[in-house]
C-alpha cells in the first residue's frame, strides 16, 4: 500500500492547506484511493473553487428556462412539448497534448452530457482557437483538432452546423477547443442526475474501464511546462462507434420507466458521477469495484475510480428493472453491470475483493470542497487612439479590403467545415459559413438556430465591455437568421486564477456577460470554466465563448446573408461612428494594437435587434447579416461572395471618413436588403421606432463600387478570401 503524505497530495495537485483540511475532516490520514477521490473532486475543473463565487451572479432565469446551470446541460422550452437541451464544454488541455483524441473526446463528452438528459443530439458546434499561423505547432494542431471533431461527430451521425476558428499568438502554448451540442427532448421526459430512494441498484453501462485519462481533470487544472509530452497518457481515447451504440441504447431505455437518475462519466469518471448523483439526492452510495467491467488486468481501486475512459454511464434504476435494462444493453453489445446501491449513510463506500477500501462522507467532497475568493484587479478602459489623417493618406479601400479578407481571422473556413458532416439527419437548413447554423425540429415547422462566438481581442482590451459584446454578438447572430434569441451557454476560458490580472479578467467578463444577458433576457443555462490556460507563465487572452440558441416558429421564414436581387436596397441598421480601436483594420492595416473595444449600448442593441425581427416577421426584408469583425465593407463583401452579386455603394454622408465608416466595428448593427416596393414602409417603421439607419447602396452587377473610390470585382475578392486557409494547410 502506498503511504499517503503531504508530498503525495501536492503531486495530486492539492495545496498543502487543502491536504490539511482533508485530514481534519476525516480526522485521519486518507488512504491512497481516498486521496485520489479528494484530488479529483477538489480540483478546479470539478469543484469550480475559484469561479463559483462569481458564477452565482450569472443571469440564469427566464420564462423559457426549464433547467439552468447545475445539471448535465441546460434545457429551454421551444413550445409545444419540445425542449432543447444544450451545453458547451472545453477540452483545451488534452487537445494541445493530443489534438485528434483531445478534440474527439471533447465532442463525445458534450454529446453524452446532452443525451444523458434524454435528448437526441441534433446539432454540434465548436469554437476553436489556435496560436499564430506562423507558429510551428499551429498547422498540425489545427489539422488534428479538425480531424478529431469530424472523426467523432461524423461517425455518430450528428451534423456539425456552425463554428468559429480564431488565431492569436496568445494561444501558441494553449489552444482552445470548445464543443457544443444541442439535443431535442420531450419536455415531460427529461432525465436528471439526482438520485432518489435507498437500496436502488447502481448500474454501470457502456465501455469497459481502462487506464486512460487517469487524472485528466487534474491535468486540466494545471498550467503547462516543458514536460507536457509526458502527460499524453492522461488524454482519453475516444470510440465514437461505442458512443453511437450507447446513445441508441440509452434512448431506448429512457423510453421506458425504469431510470431514476442517470449521469455520464466525464471528468473524474466514476468518482464524480457517483458522488454527484448521491450528493444531489442527499444519499449515500456503495460501490463494489470488483464488479466494474475492466479492460485491463490488475486495475487497482485507485485506477478504477480515477479512470476517464470514455463512453460510460452510471444509472440508478428502479428495483427489479435490471433484467429489462440489461436486455437493451445486450442488444447493443454494451457492458452492463450492477456495481452497487444507494444507501442512507450519506457516505461513499468503496469495496474491492470484499474489503472496504474507502469511506468518505459525501458532503466533504461536494459541499465542503474549498471555495476561494481570489484576489483580482480591474482592467482600466484604455485610452482612445487619435488616428491622424496622414495614417489614411496612402491607403486604398480596395487594398485594405483584400488584406482584411485574407486575414486568418476573417478568411473563409471552408477547408474546416467541408470535413464535418453538416447535412446528416436531413434537417440542416443553414450550413456553416452563415450567421448561425439552423436545423429544423424534425417533423415540425419549427427550427432552431445556434452559433458560437468569442471576441478575445475585445475582452483582453477591456473585459467588462468584451463580456457584454460576446453576448450581444450571439444575440445578433440569432436575429440575423430570423430566430428569436432564447438562451446561451458559456465556456469561460481563462489563464491562471491565482494571478490577480487573470482573475480580474474572469470576474469582469462574467460581469459583462451577466449585464448583457439580463438586459437582453438571454439567460445562461449551462456552461463550464477552463482556468490555467497558461504555459510557462504566458496565459491566453480572456476568451469566453458564448453558444447561443434561438427559435424560428416557421422555418420557411429563415433569413440568409446572400444578396438576393438586383435593384434591391441595402440599409445599415444602427449607427456607425467609425470605431477603429481594436478592429481588424487597426491591427492589420494600421498595426495599432491598443485602445478600447467598441462600446456596447444595450438599449440600442435591443431596439435594433427587435426592430430587425419585426421587419422580418412582416416579410419586409430579404436578407440580413450582422456587422462584426472587419466592419461594413467586410460584411457586404461576404454577402457578395456568397451570392456572386455586387453592390453599388451610395456616397458617404456625414463626417466619418471612409475608412472609419467602412471598417469601423461599432456594435449593434445589421445590413438588411429591401425590395424597392417595401422601401417606404421599412423607412417609416424604422423612423417610428427611432432606429438609426443609413442607406448604404443597391444590389447591382458583379462588383462593389463607390464613386471614384472603389471598384472591385466580387470574383477577385472571392479568390483571396477563399484561398487563404486552403493554401495555408497545404504548405
Amino acid at each position, binding site marked *: 500500500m502506498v503511504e499517503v503524505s503531504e508530498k503525495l497530495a501536492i503531486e495530486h495537485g492539492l495545496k498543502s492547506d487543502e491536504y490539511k483540511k482533508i485530514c481534519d475532516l476525516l480526522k485521519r490520514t486518507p488512504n491512497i484511493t481516498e486521496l485520489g477521490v479528494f484530488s479529483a473532486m477538489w480540483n478546479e475543473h470539478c469543484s469550480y473553487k475559484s469561479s463559483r463565487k462569481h458564477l452565482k451572479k450569472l443571469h440564469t432565469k427566464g420564462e423559457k428556462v426549464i433547467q439552468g446551470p447545475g445539471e448535465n446541460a441546460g434545457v429551454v422550452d421551444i413550445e409545444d412539448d419540445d425542449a432543447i437541451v444544450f451545453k458547451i464544454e472545453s477540452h483545451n488541455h488534452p487537445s494541445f497534448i493530443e489534438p485528434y483524441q483531445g478534440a474527439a473526446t471533447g465532442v463525445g463528452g458534450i454529446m453524452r452530457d446532452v443525451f444523458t438528459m434524454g435528448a437526441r443530439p441534433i446539432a454540434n458546434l465548436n469554437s476553436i482557437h489556435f496560436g499564430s499561423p506562423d507558429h510551428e505547432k499551429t498547422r498540425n494542431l489545427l489539422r488534428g483538432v479538425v*480531424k478529431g471533431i*469530424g*472523426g467523432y461527430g*461524423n*461517425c*455518430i*451521425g450528428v451534423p456539425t452546423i456552425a463554428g468559429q476558428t480564431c488565431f492569436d499568438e496568445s494561444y501558441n502554448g494553449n489552444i482552445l477547443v470548445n464543443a457544443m451540442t444541442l439535443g431535442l427532448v420531450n419536455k415531460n421526459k427529461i432525465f436528471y442526475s439526482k438520485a432518489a430512494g435507498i437500496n436502488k441498484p447502481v448500474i454501470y453501462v457502456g465501455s469497459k474501464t481502462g487506464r486512460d485519462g487517469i487524472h485528466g481533470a487534474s491535468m486540466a487544472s494545471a498550467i503547462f511546462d516543458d514536460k507536457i509530452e509526458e502527460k499524453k497518457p492522461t488524454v482519453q481515447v475516444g*470510440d*465514437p*462507434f*461505442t458512443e*453511437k*451504440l450507447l446513445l441508441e441504447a440509452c434512448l431506448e431505455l429512457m423510453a421506458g420507466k425504469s431510470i431514476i437518475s442517470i449521469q455520464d462519466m466525464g471528468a473524474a469518471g466514476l468518482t464524480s458521477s457517483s458522488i454527484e448523483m448521491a450528493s444531489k439526492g442527499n444519499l449515500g452510495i456503495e460501490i463494489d469495484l470488483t464488479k466494474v467491467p475492466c479492460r485491463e488486468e490488475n486495475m487497482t481501486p485507485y485506477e478504477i475510480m480515477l479512470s476517464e475512459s470514455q463512453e460510460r454511464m452510471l444509472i440508478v434504476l428502479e428495483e427489479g428493472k435490471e433484467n429489462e435494462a440489461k436486455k437493451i444493453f445486450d442488444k*447493443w*453489445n454494451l457492458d452492463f453491470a450492477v456495481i452497487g446501491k444507494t444507501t442512507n449513510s450519506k457516505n461513499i463506500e468503496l469495496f474491492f475483493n470484499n474489503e472496504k477500501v474507502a469511506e468518505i462522507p459525501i458532503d466533504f467532497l461536494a459541499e465542503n470542497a474549498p471555495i476561494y475568493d481570489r484576489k483580482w484587479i480591474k482592467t482600466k478602459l484604455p485610452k482612445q487612439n487619435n488616428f491622424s489623417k496622414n495614417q489614411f493618406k496612402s491607403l486604398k479601400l480596395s487594398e485594405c479590403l483584400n488584406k482584411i479578407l485574407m486575414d486568418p481571422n476573417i478568411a473563409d473556413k471552408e477547408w474546416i*467545415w*467541408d*470535413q*464535418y*458532416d*453538416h*447535412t*446528416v*439527419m*436531413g*434537417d*440542416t*437548413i443553414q*450550413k456553416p459559413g452563415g450567421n448561425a447554423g439552423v436545423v*429544423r425540429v424534425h417533423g415540425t415547422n419549427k427550427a432552431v438556430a445556434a452559433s458560437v462566438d468569442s471576441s478575445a481581442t475585445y475582452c483582453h482590451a477591456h473585459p467588462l465591455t468584451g463580456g457584454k459584446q460576446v453576448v450581444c454578438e450571439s444575440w445578433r447572430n440569432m436575429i440575423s437568421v430570423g430566430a428569436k434569441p432564447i438562451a446561451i451557454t458559456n465556456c469561460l476560458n481563462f489563464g491562471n486564477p491565482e494571478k490577480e490580472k487573470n482573475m480580474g479578467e474572469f470576474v469582469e467578463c462574467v460581469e459583462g456577460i451577466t449585464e448583457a444577458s439580463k438586459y437582453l433576457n438571454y439567460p445562461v443555462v449551462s456552461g463550464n470554466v477552463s482556468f490555467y490556460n497558461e504555459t510557462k507563465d504566458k496565459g491566453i487572452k480572456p476568451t469566453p465563448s458564448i453558444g447561443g440558441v434561438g427559435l424560428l416558429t416557421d*422555418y*420557411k421564414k*429563415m433569413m440568409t446573408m446572400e444578396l438576393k436581387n438586383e435593384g434591391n436596397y441595402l440599409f445599415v441598421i444602427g449607427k456607425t461612428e467609425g470605431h477603429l480601436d481594436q478592429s481588424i483594420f487597426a491591427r492589420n492595416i494600421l498595426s495599432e494594437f491598443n485602445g478600447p473595444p467598441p462600446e456596447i449600448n444595450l438599449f440600442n442593441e435591443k431596439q435594433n435587434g427587435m426592430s430587425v425581427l419585426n421587419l422580418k416577421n412582416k416579410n419586409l426584408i430579404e436578407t440580413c447579416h450582422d456587422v462584426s469583425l472587419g466592419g461594413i465593407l467586410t460584411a457586404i463583401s461576404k454577402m457578395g461572395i456568397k451570392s456572386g452579386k455586387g453592390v453599388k455603394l451610395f456616397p458617404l454622408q456625414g463626417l466619418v471618413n471612409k475608412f472609419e465608416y467602412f471598417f469601423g466595428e461599432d456594435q449593434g448593427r445589421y445590413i438588411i436588403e429591401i425590395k424597392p416596393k417595401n422601401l417606404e414602409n421599412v423607412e417609416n417603421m424604422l423612423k417610428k421606432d427611432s432606429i438609426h439607419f443609413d442607406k448604404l447602396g443597391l444590389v447591382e452587377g458583379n462588383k462593389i463600387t463607390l464613386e471614384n473610390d472603389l471598384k472591385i470585382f466580387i470574383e477577385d475578392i472571392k479568390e483571396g478570401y477563399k484561398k487563404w486557409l486552403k493554401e495555408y494547410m497545404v504548405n
Partner: protein
Amino acid sequence: MKSSVIIFPGSNCDRDMDVALKKFGFENQMVWHNDAEIPKSDLIILPGGFSYGDYLRCGSIAGKSKIIKSVIKFANSGGLVLGICNGFQILTETGLLPGILQQNKYLNFICKNVFVKIKNKENKYFKKIKKEVLELHIAHNEGNYFCSSDELKSIEDNGQIAVTYCDQAGNDDEKNNPNGALKNIAGIFNKDKNILGMMPHPERMIDPFLSGEDGSLFFENLIESL
C-alpha cells in the same frame, strides 16, 4: 411498393432514408442486422453510416453480418438492392459489386454538394430521370473508387458505370473529381443493373430547404419504375 432499410450498429443515415422513402410513397420498414430474414420487399437499402464502426475496413464487418446472407440471396434472385455511401462500401465488401473504396485522395473527410452525370439510364434507378446531370451531396472519408484494369474494362463494356463526378455542365474530368475515384466513378451497377452502389446521398436532397432537390428526382423515378 415495399422497401426495407437495414440497420447495422453504427448506421446513421437510416432515419434519413426512411423519411425520404416514405415521402415518395414507399411503404418502408426498418430491419435489424441480427434478423435472419428480410420481410417481403421490392427494394432493399443499405444506408450510410459507420457500420460496426467501420473498424477493420469500411463495410467489411457488415459484409459478413447475419442479415447480409439474405441480402445476397435477394440480390442474386434479381431483387433491387441500393447501397448509399457506407452501403456502397458494404456491397463491394460482399462482392456483389466489383472494386473497392479507398480513402479520399487528399485524406480528408469531404462533405459538400457535387454534380454527377448519369452514364446509363437503361435501368430502374435512372430510367425516367429527364436530367443528365444531378446535383447531389457527398459526405465520406472513403469514397475513392478503385478496381483492376480488367475489372474496369468489364464494367465499362457492360455499361456498369452508373454516375460519375462532373461539373454543372457534365464534364467528368479530373478537375471535377472530389476524392480521386477512378474514372470519376461515383456509383456502379452489377452486370444485371439490379444492384446500385453510390457514394452520393440522394436522401439529403429532397427538399428545397435542404442542400437541393435533385434527390427527389431519384426517388420519384424509383417509385415509378418499380
